[in-house]
């Protein structure tokens, strides 16, 4: 654990701490430092976040096909194999949905460390901070950082406004990211997540330095803008945003989803004959294979390649 901790310090906490102190020293305000740091982190993680947004949309669009496969094959192992095949052919890595989050979590933990060290008011926190600064005189010249920003002291938790802002921005971001549920179970799950996640983040903001809350709120706001731009702007369904409608908050997202569904529905259709035969075998080998239609000759692998390129390339081709 010690070695892992030191490695974590070396590659993430120390660089972020020094960058934050540099920004806070240069601007004379830790609050502006937090804002610049948020923009910086959002910029360098943009490719991952974009990939995550794309994967989430595609995965959502794949649900009908996945359900179809599930119904078709009674053997769970076989169904899973077919689903994997579909992922592969679509060039989708389901893990991609979580890549952004997996990157965000260590950054959040590192930022927590950064803010508690750099914004701490006690002399002990300054001693700890001094041990983390690179040997550049300029960095220590601005210490202790001016942690007062608007109504906040960034080193202390904010009891009201910031947790509310974090909860609200998390709620809006989730609403904008989520697609309408395809079944009741998913709808219930979405509703639960829509409520619990903002409450959870609002609650932890109550206990953490408000610098971290400011980062999170700002990061959410940037995420909201990114979502809006990603789906191609367009109108906003305000009724859906406040929970008065089950329609998506961004109607354009539905158009995008339909395009994905159309594209995905074409994948593997050429092999339907095979699928039917295999399904028949699964059902007990009733000899349906004998009735199958002769398959039209296909340019081997070319269609898969086209599909794979289409999805692996994100919105390059899906965009109008």
């Amino acid at each position, binding site marked *: 654990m010690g070695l892992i901790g030191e490695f974590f310090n070396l590659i993430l906490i120390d660089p972020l701490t020094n960058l934050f102190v540099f920004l806070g020293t240069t601007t004379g305000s830790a609050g502006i430092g937090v804002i610049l740091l948020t923009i910086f982190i959002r910029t360098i993680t943009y490719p991952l976040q974009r990939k995550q947004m794309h994967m989430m949309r595609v995965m959502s669009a794949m649900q009908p096909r996945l359900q179809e496969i599930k119904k078709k094959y009674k053997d769970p192992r076989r169904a899973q*194999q077919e689903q994997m095949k579909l992922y592969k052919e679509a060039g989708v890595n*389901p893990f991609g949905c979580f890549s952004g989050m997996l990157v965000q979590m260590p950054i959040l933990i590192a930022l*927590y460390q950064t803010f508690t*060290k750099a914004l701490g008011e*006690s002399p*002990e926190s300054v001693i*700890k901070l001094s041990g983390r600064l690179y040997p550049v005189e300029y960095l220590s010249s601005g*210490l202790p950082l001016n942690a007062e920003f608007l109504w906040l002291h960034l080193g202390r938790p904010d009891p009201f406004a910031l947790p509310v802002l974090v909860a609200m921005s998390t709620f809006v971001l989730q609403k904008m990211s989520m697609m309408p549920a395809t079944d009741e179970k998913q709808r219930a799950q979405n509703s639960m997540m829509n409520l619990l996640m903002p409450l959870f983040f609002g609650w932890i903001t109550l206990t953490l330095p408000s610098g971290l809350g400011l980062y999170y709120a700002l990061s959410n706001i940037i995420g909201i803008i990114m979502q809006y731009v990603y789906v191609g702007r367009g109108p906003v369904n305000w009724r859906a945003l406040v929970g008065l409608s089950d329609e998506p908050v961004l109607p354009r997202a539905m158009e995008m989803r339909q395009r994905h569904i159309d594209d995905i529905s074409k994948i593997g259709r050429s092999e339907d004959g095979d699928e039917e035969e295999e399904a028949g075998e699964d059902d007990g080998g009733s000899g349906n294979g004998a009735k199958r239609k002769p398959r039209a000759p296909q340019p081997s692998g070319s269609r898969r390649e086209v599909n794979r390129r289409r999805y692996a390339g994100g919105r390059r081709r899906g965009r109008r």
Partner: protein
Amino acid sequence: MLFDRAQAMFHVKQRRAPALLAGIFLLGLLLMGCTRGTGPHGWAAPFETDDFLVVATGKGHIDGLEGSDLDKAWRFPNDWEISEKAARKLTAIYTTPVSTTDAQGRDVVFIGDYNGYLYAFRPGDAGEGTTKPKAASLKLNGPVIGGIAFDSSTDTLYVSSGSRIFSVRAADMANRISNSDDTVKYAQLFETGGAIWSAPVYASGKVYFGSLDGNVYAVDGVTGNELWHYDSGHPVVSVTLLGGVLITSGFENQVVALDPASGTEKWTLETANWVWTHAAGDANDVYLADFDGNLYDVNLATGSVRWQFDVGHGTIRAGPILASGTIVVGTDSGWLIGVDTAGSSKRWEKEIGTSVQADLVAGAGSSVLIAPNGCVTPEGQTEKLYYTSVDARTGELETASGVC
């Protein structure tokens, strides 16, 4: 093949997305919990009254130890009654206690706390009668980190609080112990542009202190008028008057010596890292230590380094002390080290397992009083111990009883 297997594995998990999400966030919370930030703990140096050794044995309390076994006789604030509700919980004590005697000849101890209060209590009252004895409190401007200086000729306490220095009439505080409604005469003496983390020093009617605004100040002890200030260009954390020279240091790899009469610079010393220790020594030699763990012997008159010795255990915040021909040093990493006065070798070193950030104080004979951050369980033992002193000649440790 491997890819397929991994995908298949993930696919199973994907259906448990909420559980996975919850797991990730719990892990995050756990890591946050494991790596808590550094809150104030305090580093009050040990202090001796006629009857007790007064030591801040932990966060937000101080203990009175008595007898040769150093038995815990009382704990403040636990064993006292404080009338003001907001003052009852202490956060972190950085100030070395100051002691006076009241009109009846009883010892009165004053301490300040990070919570912004100044306290007065009589250690002799502990254990008397069936009810808790009373203590007095006075709300000041902000965290009391720097400390308290006392001028016995005017019975005035000088207390740093937030960015201000206050003068407080000690007798009034002592009277308030018996009657919480008694008025305490106090005044804001001076306000700086930053928090004051350096203990004020009183000498010849003047109060000297440094501020995080980068200045060292000298103000009149009665009027609060500024006599001079020295702009060091970086936050000042330590001000010590030694042999007629003000030794100052802070958030910079240098120590500056000033003339207390005029505030003019006498010499500067470049160090390897920041110096927050109070200077110790005599009219010839000043002993200082830095955050890299270097100990310096500096010529007080010229500022030239006689020797520099790497103690080898990291950050030193606690002021070193010269006792029985040995310089004793305590480190943040929990080591006590005895270095010879030639700066050539260690005489002994002991790991005590908890930070030593409070200044070391000379005790009786070759004993050096220490105030580590808390109790420890030494290797091979089951009982928790609190170390109170070390023999400067041998490194032999002494413990208190009833503290842990």
